[in-house]
Structures are given as structure tokens and as C-alpha cells.
């Protein structure tokens, strides 16, 4: 089932089969060259597989953009311990709804990506960790896994290759922090989702303290193409240093919000105007978040010449992130936006480290009173100061994720904070019910 019409400017690689009848079923997948990448990989050495992934310039699609081939090469393949593949399907970064679409429409593509990763590091078991709210996707995945076992694409001696692999789903139970890789691994072990100190990284001591490849759903979904068509073909779709396409979730004030698969390096302007159908009601763009609420916010002028890729966003001191694009028009109250974003991080902070637990809570309190008209002039600097003091001082990057958008909003939209002090009515009206 699709949620939005595709757009002609999309480059459909991961979504190539979307829209076909019963896309989740194995028969259709096999008819469309499904599992061919795995069969190719099964004839290659692990080094050759990893080499193709390196050539593809695939970078992690979960938010951090770490080069995938390099990550895989860190796994000590010859370690006597079992190795594991873990799929991060926690998808909870506000603005992001792409992994959901990938699992729902083509679960076998994900299974094939996992199998290839298994070949690359000599792993024989994997877990697909899916957030608890996506219960129907656990059913989709369980069904696909059962089909794959029935047709010999999972289990012992897969298709006569001599390679064994078992795959399981694992449900989350409501916690953004469990998307953070080490917290996810704790959760997978039946514990509270609290981050682990690193190093050691999951590649060396991940699931059950064994070497583990942990990637985002979209990252694994790109792997079958890379093996089937070659790493170079994938690299050529994108730009230097960033291969392939990015599942992009257009959200907020555009005419056609939706999930679209765009080449890396796609111009932001064209994305908004053409793919997104332009700003809703002909309003002006005020603020732009490229990849989920954890990224620093950009203003309209900063978007001049910007492209949807890692370097273009880094040059503007923000991040491509998860692909959750959030577009806000001129009527949006940025104080309210900052408050809502902070309420999220305060709710989701796992409480393990003090700068994050206290910082998010205090920022929520100050932003709440500010938005309700009870703020003072010193509060504006206080918000920025608290956020800056969190940066880089928390146990895991959740603290940074809370601080970065806040700092950027206070710096770039200071006048709106001043307006709230001067009794000017908030462009968007007073805060909604604050329940937490």
C-alpha cells in the first residue's frame, strides 16, 4: 500500500517495485530479480562484497551517515565468537517515516540486504528491531520471513550455497532512545534502553557482546542493488562521496507532503517547488529542517544553492540526518516549534546522564514559560547557554540532538523571542495543552 503518489523526478531504486500488486510477497520479489544480489554475493569472498559496498559510497541512512562499507570492514570476521546482523527499524526521529514504507512495501529487499551483510562478515543470525508502534510491520516482516524460510531463502544451506542464516523480528515498546545503536542493543537483550559506553563499538562488541553489524533499514535495503548492479552503478546515481538515493520524507507546509526517493545531491529548491508542489497556500518558507528534528534549522536564505547531500548540509552547519524534511512557513511560531521539539527530547531522555536529563527538562520548562508569555529577557540567553553546555557533554548523542535545533532557533529567530517579550501576539497562537 502506498501513501502518496510517486513523483516523476524520483529515482526509483529502493522503491522500484512499489505500486505493484502484492509487492510484499516473495513470488513478485523473485520475479523482479529478487535475491539475485545475494546469489552473486554468495560466489564472492567477504572482501569482495565489502569492496563493492565501499565502491558504492553508501553511507548510513539512520542519521549519522557513516560509510557502510567501512563499518562492515571493522567486524573481526575471524573472531571465534558468533557474529550478528541487527536492523535498526526503530524509526522515531520526528519527521521520519521512510523505513515504514520500505518494510511495508518490500520486506524481502530488506531480508536480502541482511543476508548479504551476513555473507560479508560470516554472521548466521540477525534481528530486525522494529518500534512497538509499528506492530503491523512486525506482522509484515514475520510473514516475509516465513515465506523466505519456506522457499529456502532463509535457514540452512540457503539455495545450496552452504550458507546458513536465521532471522527474527524483535519488537520495541515505545522509546526513542532505543534507536540509538547501543541502547537498541541493550533493549534487544531485555534491558532498559540505556546507551553503552564506546568503544568498544558494536562492530566488535554488539549484540550479546559479539561482533555485530548494525544498520538502518534503508541502508540494508540499498545493498541488494549494489550487489546486483555493482557498487559503481549505485555510486553513479549520487554525487562524489555519497552514492545512491535517499528516501526523503517531505513533511510540513508543502502542497504534496510524502515520501520520495531522490538522488543524493537533489537541489532543495527543486525538491520543495516541484516534488513537494511548492509551499502550501503560496506562503513563504521560514524554516527548513533537513533530516529530522535533531538537525539545526536553516532559514530560507541559507537554502540558496543547497542540495540534499551530506556535504552541502555540513557546509551550512547542519546535517542530512534521517531524511525527515520539515518545512515551516512564515506563519509558524518558532518559539512554539522550539518548545515542541524540546518537549520531545525531555520526554525521551533516558535519564542516564545528568546534562541530558536536566538540560532537556530545564529547557522545556523555560521554553514553556517563555511561550506562555512569562519569559524574561535573560531567558533568551539562558536557553542558548544551557543548550550549548549540553553539546558534546552527554553520554550519547541524544543530548546533542536536543541542543542543536534549539541553539539554531535561538540564534536565527531571536527576533521572535523578543516579540514574545514585547507582548506581540504569537504568530501561531498560545501553546497547546502542555501535558507533560
Amino acid at each position, binding site marked *: 500500500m502506498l501513501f502518496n503518489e510517486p513523483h516523476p523526478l524520483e529515482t526509483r531504486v529502493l522503491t522500484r517495485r512499489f505500486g505493484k500488486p502484492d509487492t510484499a510477497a516473495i513470488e513478485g520479489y523473485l520475479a523482479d530479480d529478487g535475491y539475485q544480489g545475494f546469489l552473486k554475493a554468495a560466489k564472492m569472498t567477504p572482501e569482495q562484497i565489502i569492496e563493492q559496498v565501499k565502491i558504492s559510497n553508501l553511507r548510513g541512512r539512520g542519521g549519522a551517515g557513516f560509510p557502510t562499507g567501512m563499518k562492515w570492514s571493522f567486524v573481526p570476521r575471524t573472531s571465534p565468537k558468533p557474529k550478528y546482523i541487527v536492523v535498526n527499524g526503530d524509526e522515531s526521529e520526528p519527521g521520519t517515516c521512510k523505513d515504514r514504507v520500505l518494510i511495508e512495501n518490500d520486506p524481502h529487499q530488506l531480508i536480502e540486504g541482511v543476508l548479504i551483510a551476513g555473507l560479508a562478515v560470516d554472521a548466521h543470525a540477525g534481528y530486525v528491531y522494529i518500534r512497538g*508502534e509499528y506492530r503491523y510491520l512486525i506482522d509484515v516482516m514475520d510473514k516475509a520471513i516465513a515465506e523466505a524460510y519456506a522457499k529456502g531463502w532463509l535457514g540452512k544451506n540457503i539455495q545450496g550455497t552452504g550458507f546458513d542464516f536465521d532471522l527474527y523480528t524483535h519488537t520495541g515498546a515505545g522509546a526513542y532512545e532505543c534507536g540509538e545503536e547501543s541502547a537498541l542493543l541493550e533493549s534487544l537483550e531485555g534491558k532498559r534502553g540505556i546507551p553503552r559506553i564506546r568503544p568498544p563499538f558494536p562492530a566488535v562488541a554488539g549484540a550479546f557482546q559479539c561482533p555485530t553489524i548494525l544498520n538502518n533499514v534503508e541502508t540494508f535495503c540499498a545493498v541488494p542493488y549494489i550487489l546486483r548492479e555493482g557498487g559503481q552503478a549505485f555510486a553513479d546515481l549520487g554525487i562524489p562521496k555519497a552514492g545512491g538515493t535517499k528516501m526523503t520524507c517531505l513533511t510540513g507546509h508543502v502542497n504534496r507532503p510524502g515520501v520520495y526517493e531522490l538522488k543524493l545531491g537533489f537541489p532543495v529548491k527543486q525538491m520543495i517547488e516541484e516534488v513537494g508542489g511548492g509551499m502550501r497556500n503560496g506562503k513563504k518558507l521560514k524554516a527548513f529542517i533537513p533530516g529530522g528534528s535533531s538537525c539545526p534549522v536553516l532559514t530560507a536564505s541559507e537554502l540558496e544553492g543547497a542540495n540534499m547531500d551530506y556535504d552541502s548540509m555540513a557546509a551550512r552547519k547542519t546535517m542530512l540526518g534521517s531524511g525527515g524534511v520539515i518545512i515551516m512557513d512564515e506563519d509558524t511560531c518558532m518559539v512554539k516549534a522550539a518548545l*515542541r521539539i524540546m518537549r520531545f527530547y525531555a520526554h525521551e531522555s533516558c535519564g542516564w546522564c545528568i546534562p541530558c536529563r536536566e538540560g532537556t527538562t530545564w529547557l522545556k520548562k523555560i521554553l514553556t514559560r517563555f511561550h506562555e508569555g512569562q519569559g524574561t529577557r535573560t531567558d533568551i540567553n539562558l536557553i542558548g547557554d544551557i543548550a550549548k553546555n549540553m553539546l558534546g557533554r552527554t553520554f550519547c548523542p541524544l543530548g546533542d540532538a536536543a541542543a542543536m535545533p534549539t541553539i539554531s532557533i535561538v540564534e536565527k529567530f531571536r527576533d521572535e523571542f523578543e516579540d514574545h517579550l514585547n507582548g506581540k501576539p504569537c504568530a501561531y497562537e498560545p501553546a497547546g495543552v502542555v501535558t507533560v
Partner: protein
Amino acid sequence: MTFSPQLEARFEKLLTSYPPGRQRSAMIPMLMYAQDELGCVSDELIDEVARRIGVTPLQVNEVLTYYSMLHRKPLGKYHVQVCTNISCLLYDGDKLYEHACKKLGITHKEVTADGQFSIEEVECMGACSWAPAIQINYDFHHYVTPEKLDQLLDGLRKKQ
């Protein structure tokens, strides 16, 4: 404790899904699937899950309090979850939430007197491009207007 055959089958599968000695991994999935059948996580369920995975009830309790979807008290038969996070907010998700509260006469994490409905203001549920979004139990509803919400809730009321 006895469970339905489907749930027993799920438990059995879960207990063999993890490496030997790692049965504790099954804890959260077992609690989630059992909660779906029983309505909430009872003391009895905690004891049972603890026994089956070989940990103490305290260890289960310590873990479950971390997760926002695990509930110690029953929710309404229909648990209405309204997202007010940023992408939904840009489509008046906050007003939709207020509307739902008024309509049901309850607020965050409360249950109606007849036990039919409960409501929760929730964080991003992964439906941001089809905002504003709500979930009723596990079912997603996209592009929800106040009118559409009324229809949904009225329809569920009739179904009882």
C-alpha cells in the same frame, strides 16, 4: 497463568529466538504480546514472564517502567493516540488532540468511565508525511481532521 494457544506459540518461538542463555531477550516482546491479550501488565504476568525467562520479578519491573507502551493499568478498549510532534503540529495536531480530549471528556492517559476509550498525547509515530496522524490501538489513521476523528470515534462507539 494460562494464555491463548497463539500467545503460547509466540512465547515458545521467542524463547528460542535468542542465543542459549539469553532468554532474557524475550522479555519485552513477551510483555508486549501478552499485554495485547490481557489489556495490561499485571503483577501475575510479571511473575510469569520472570519465571519463564529466568529472572526475578523485580528485574522485569525495572525494565518495563522504562517503556512507554507497557502499561500497568488497563487502557480503554480503544486507545486513541494523537501525535502532536513537530510535523503533525504543523497540521494542527495540537488542536486535534484538544478536540479529541473534549469529545471524550478525558485528557492525557485517562480512561472514560465506561472503559471504552482512553487518550494519550504521543510523540512522532512515523506518519509525518501524512499528518496529522493518530493511532487507535495499532491502527494508523492519516490526514485526520476533527470531523474525521468524530466519525471514527462515533463509529467505534456504535460498534460496542
